[in-house]
Structures are given as C-alpha cells and as structure tokens.
C-alpha cells in the first residue's frame, strides 16, 4: 500500500491563530488532493469556522477561521473509519458550529485536534450534516453506533468516558505553547494517519497516530485500531531526550486536572460493546545502544515494530499486537533519512535515542522546507 502525505510544512511564527490556521489548511489541502483520493479518502462534512468565508489560509480570501472542521472517510481501510480535523485559537473548542467539541477533555483551550470513529459494520458513524458546503453542523452525540457497535477515539468518548454522552472529545496534536516556527509532516495510507510536529522548531517532535495494528496470534479483532498521541507538554511540545516517541505509559494518561499528557485508546479486541479503552505501547529498552543500533556489522537500518496493548484495570489488560506501518529505530540522527529518502527518522535531537521511522517521499530533504504548504506526495 502506498503512503502519501504533506511533508516539511513550516508555519507562521509568533502567532497562535496563524500557525493553527496554517496547519489546518495545509492538512485539509492534502486531504482534498488527488494523492488522498487515491487512498480512498473522501470528504464527508465541512465547516469553515465561526467567521470563515471559505477554504483558505488566514491571509487569503476566502479563508477558514476558528472552529473550522472537516470530516473524512477512509473508505479503503480494512474497516472504514472517519476522521474529524478541527482547530481553534480563541480558547474555545465549541465556537460556532464546532459545538459540541473538546480537546483532551477540555473546552477552554487552543489547538489543532483530531477525533476518529468507526463502526464494526463499517458504516458511517458521523451524526452531523453532510452537505460539504462549509456550513455543516455536528450532531449530538457527534458519533453514533447506528445499529452496530461504535469505536470512538479518544478513550474519553467511549464507554465509561467523561465525554461518552456527547462523544465530542478530540486529541490535541501538539501544543504550540508560545508560538514560534513549527515544522510538521502529515502522512497516511488506507489504514493509518500520522502527524509529526516539531512545535518549537527545536527538533523535539510530538506525534499523533491513528491506525491499524497487526493482531496477536490467536485473535481476530473486529477493528484492530489504536490511537496514540505523545506527550505535548515538554517546553511547549515535542519529544526530548532518550525516550521512545511513544513512551511506555497509558494513553490517555491522566495527570492533573483535566489534562492528558498522553491521549489515545485502543478498540477492545474481543468485546466491541466495551468500545475504546486505554492503550499502552511498548518498546525494547534492552536493545537500545550502539552495539545493536544501527548495526556496524551490516550497515543497515534496523527497525522494530511497536508492540501495543490495552491497560485499563485488571479486567482489560494485555498485549494486542504490533504497529508495523511506523517503526522504531535507535541512534539515527533526528530528521535524517535513508539514502533513497523513502524513510525519515523523527524524535528528539538526542542522537543516542529512539526515533520513529516514517515514510518519506524519496525526494525532499527532511527539515529543509520553508513553506506553509509543504510538499505533497
């Protein structure tokens, strides 16, 4: 399966409104492209925002504004899923037609945020209007099961979650903090989505992933999908030090009042009535180190799949499978690439650390882009 995306986009400095607007528009532009269409991605709904006049950057006419959202169907996924993309920079996730909406279980916050949903029967769980005219509205709840079972991410939207009534929560995708230049990359194929953002242009990446995992032997989950959003709180966002891109903790990881340092969830693999529960990734700390990564013996880039499981109480805990679309490597320089430029390595500026191996376009040098539009492939 081919991967497409928009890479090396660099957004406006020192202005929260402008940087979030530019991220949103750049991603939506990609999702509207022929590249995305080739993956079976189609638009289901759109809202231009509370003062929006159409689709475009903040300095264009028409342009989108705070509260803008779009909904996308990934029709060619093994189990079709739906993605909500939205943003605001006025400290209110519920501005205009974006209501109801929360980001990481909060409403008085700025950000660019994603939510995902799918039904076991593969039908459309979006409960809002579908005119795709910039004026669509959300339903309440935002996502519904119909006559099937609903999996809705992040975990707060699901059974027993704080947002399970209106199913309005979304995952933040990196915290711009005090805005400076930001570089980001957005990738997807039929079954996966990844946003990697260097929030402060300091080399510390934050990651938001949604996608399919390979189930453990002996299981046949109806929807083997997981969402992971890494910590966004380090110095305004991004990974630092030797930690793996998705540290081994619970997603969401509730720390303090209504703030999720990590967010996400995993569809229950054997009981769809339980919905999405807390996820946990793993990695191989025993294999870190120059003696194993990269390998002097072969000169090859070695990559490890990312084991994932569920970790919510004693009755919903265990290994579920592994992510193989993106992988871990150790000791690669941040933003370095394979010689054919078909893979890039993102994480922290610490050389002796785990990096996320992500697809790349075979042409662009990672970290060199200077435009908000980035490079589509």
């Amino acid at each position, binding site marked *: 399966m081919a991967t497409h995306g928009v890479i090396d986009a660099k957004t406006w400095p020192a202005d929260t409104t402008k940087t979030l607007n530019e991220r949103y528009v750049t991603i939506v532009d990609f999702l509207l492209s022929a590249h995305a269409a080739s993956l079976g991605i189609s638009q289901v709904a759109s809202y231009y925002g509370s003062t929006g006049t159409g689709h475009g950057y903040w300095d264009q006419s028409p342009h989108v504004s705070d509260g803008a959202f779009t909904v996308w169907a990934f029709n060619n996924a093994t189990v079709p899923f739906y993605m909500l993309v939205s943003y605001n920079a006025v400290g209110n996730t519920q501005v205009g037609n974006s209501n109801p909406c929360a980001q990481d279980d909060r409403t008085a916050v700025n950000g660019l945020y994603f939510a995902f949903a799918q039904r076991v029967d593969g039908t459309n769980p979006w409960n809002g209007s579908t005119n795709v005219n910039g004026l669509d509205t959300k339903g309440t709840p935002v996502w519904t099961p119909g006559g099937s079972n609903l999996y809705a991410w992040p975990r707060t939207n699901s059974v027993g979650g704080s947002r399970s009534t209106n199913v309005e929560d979304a995952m933040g995708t990196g915290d711009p903090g005090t805005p400076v230049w930001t570089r980001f990359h957005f990738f997807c194929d039929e079954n996966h989505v990844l946003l990697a953002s260097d929030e402060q242009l300091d080399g510390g990446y934050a990651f938001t992933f949604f996608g399919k995992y390979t189930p453990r032997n002996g299981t046949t989950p109806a929807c083997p999908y997981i969402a992971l959003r890494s910590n966004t709180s380090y110095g305004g966002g991004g990974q630092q030090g030797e930690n793996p891109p998705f540290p081994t903790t619970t997603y969401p990881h509730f720390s303090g009042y209504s703030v999720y340092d990590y967010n996400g969830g995993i569809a229950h693999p054997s009981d769809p009535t339980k919905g999405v529960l807390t996820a946990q990734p*793993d*990695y191989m700390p025993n294999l870190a180190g120059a*003696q194993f990564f990269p390998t002097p*013996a*072969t000169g090859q880039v070695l*990559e*490890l799949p990312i084991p994932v*499981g569920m970790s919510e109480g004693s009755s919903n805990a*265990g290994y579920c499978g592994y992510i193989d679309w993106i992988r871990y490597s150790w000791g690669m320089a941040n933003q370095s690439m394979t010689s054919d430029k078909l893979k890039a390595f993102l994480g922290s500026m610490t050389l002796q650390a785990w990096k996320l191996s992500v697809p790349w376009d075979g042409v662009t040098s990672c970290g060199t882009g200077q435009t908000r539009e980035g490079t589509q492939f």
Partner: protein
Amino acid sequence: MTTPHGIIEVVPSDPTNSYRTREMFVSLQMFLTSSYAVAAGITRIACQSNGAGGGFDYVNTGNNAFAVYEWTAATKPFYVMFHLSMSGTLGTPGLPALIDGVSNVFGTCEAIGVSVAMRSDGGNPWNGTTFDNGYDTKGTPVWTSGGSDLLVWPRSNAAGGNTATNAENMVSLFGIVNNAPITDPVHNPVLGSRFHFLCDQENFASVSSPDGDYRNHHVFFGRYNPVHGTEATNLFPYAMIASKQYSVNFDPSVIYTTYGSTVAGSIPFEGGIAHTSDPSQGVKSVYLCAQDGFLNAGHQPNTTMSPATYDEMPFWLAMNEGPNWSIAGTTDFFRAVFGPFAWDTTYALDRAVFGTYNATGRQMYTVPWNAAVAPGTSWSSRSGTMF
C-alpha cells in the same frame, strides 16, 4: 513454524544415574528414527552405539555412543550430533569430544551432549564416517567447511574459539548431578528425571528436568525471524540458546544475558548465532532478551481476550560479540510467557510452559506440545510419548 513433533514425558526411573541418562539418550534416538521425525525431514547419517550394533537399546548402548542427524527439510539444512556420556570422562569411541568445554561435565559426566553444524553451500559438514551401522567414528575436526563457510555451534567451535581446531565441543542437553527424588505429593518418592524433545523442520528444543522437579535444563536451536530490513541479507538466521547448568530457574539472569563464548564453558550459558550478514565469519555470541513490556502481573493473563489467556511473546536475539553486533530477530518456536505455573499448557495443549521451579508470577518459556497430554502426566515411562 511447521508441524511440530517430539518425544515428551520421558520419565525413566532407574536409580542409577548413568543408566537413567542412557535411557534418556536411547529414547531420543528412537524418536529421531521414528516416522514422526521422518515427517519433520530428519534423517540419520551416522551412528556409533558402542555395543548395540546398528541400533540403540536400553541395555547394550555403551558409553560415548553418538548419532548424527540431518534436518533435511530446513531452509538451510543443518546437522545435529547427540553424544551419550555415562561416567568418568569423555572417551573412545566418541573422541574428540568435550561437553560444556570439559571432558567430565558436571563432575560425574552423566550427560548428553549436542553440537550443530551447517555449511553455507548446503553441503554436509560432518567429517566422520557415515556407514550408519553402529560403528561410525568422528573425524578430527568433527565438523568441516569443505571449502564452504562452516557455521558450527556452540560458539567455541567457530573461528576464534578455543575449540575451533577440532570443533569437538558440545553443549549439555541433559545432565545429572544430584540423585534427588521427585517430590510430587502423590507419587512421592519417585526417583527420576523428566525429558522432553520438541522439533519441527527448522528447530529443536530440549527441555529436561534432571532432578524431576520443575526446574529445567533447556537447549533451543533453530531458525528465527530476521528483524525488518535484514531479510534479504541474513541468509542463515539460526541460533542456539543453551542453559548449560543442569537445573536452573528461568529468571532474568537467564533471560537477559549472553549465550556462547569463544572459550568453551567460560560463561554460564552456551550457544551462539550465525553471523547476521556474513557467514564467512561463522558463529558469534548471542544476546537473548524478551519482548517483555506486557509480561508482568499487570497485564497477565491477557484479559482483553475471552477467555483470559497468557500471552506468548517472542524472544529477541542479537549478535553480541564485538565488533560483530546487530539485532538479529525474534524466535517463534521458543516463546516467552509470564505468570503461569510450570507444566501449564495452552487450552489446546499445543504449547507447554517450562522454566521455573514451583512458582507462579514469573517469567517462563513455552515450546510446542502434542495437543493431547499435559506435562507431568507420566510418572514412569522411559519410552515417553511420541507425536
């Protein structure tokens, strides 16, 4: 993993350690020449019975008997020699020979040794005679390259190893030190040992409990899955993990450690791994560790499954002998598990748990099983159960 076969629940009860060791060896030979082994592509090419003629039996098989088998259906055919030592020191007609680097392993030399070899050209590396009539002899060296690249286990037999000249070292597959009784509350006292041997077309594992308790002496040899990105260049993904110690708990000191040394017997664990990219460099030391982030009390058994099930996770292998370092890949025949009691099985009885003495909530390992009887079912059967 192809269809597994094996001989399990071999529980001889002869009170004499040397005879009990022989019973174990002979039962293994009977399996390796059975229709089950033939189905796995195993063919005997040489044997020395030292008194039992062309076959092996429980009475006449003598000290320092040995037999050599080819795993013909392996992706890269390999050859395995099993050697019986009943007392004293290793000697004729089985020389040259060492087990775990010495000629009197465990002091008593009541043990079974095993070594493995393959050639990069697929040819036969056995340097002894191949009459297969009970009177074969070893060559010196025991294994040869024949103009190709020789991959030979344990590590000390390979280039740079202290037994590389004669390639005569073996790892202990089984060995008796104590003559302890099995302390099963129902069958107590039963004097004896317990032995299982599992294999398929690419792998074998020996799981023995010389003292008949839950502790194990384990040897694994076989093919692993190369780590992503190396499938095209790692053409000989084979490794050996051998506990060497006659009876150990499978605790972290056994799991997260290096197996195989250039000096035979100099570290607690034997084994090795074929060089991950260059077979001309032979076999190197191998590091073993588990994919263990979910192998803990908080995540086992796996309650996301219905019914709740203990997860079997791969072991990771890495070449670990400077300057030859690399992550290698993951095992499948031999897997890690956390929590169940030794001798537990899957619901289908097709995988069995071994590793640690009389305790739950510990790291263990699993091997294929016969889908019929649980470990510990037999309390007196030197011939065991084949499948």
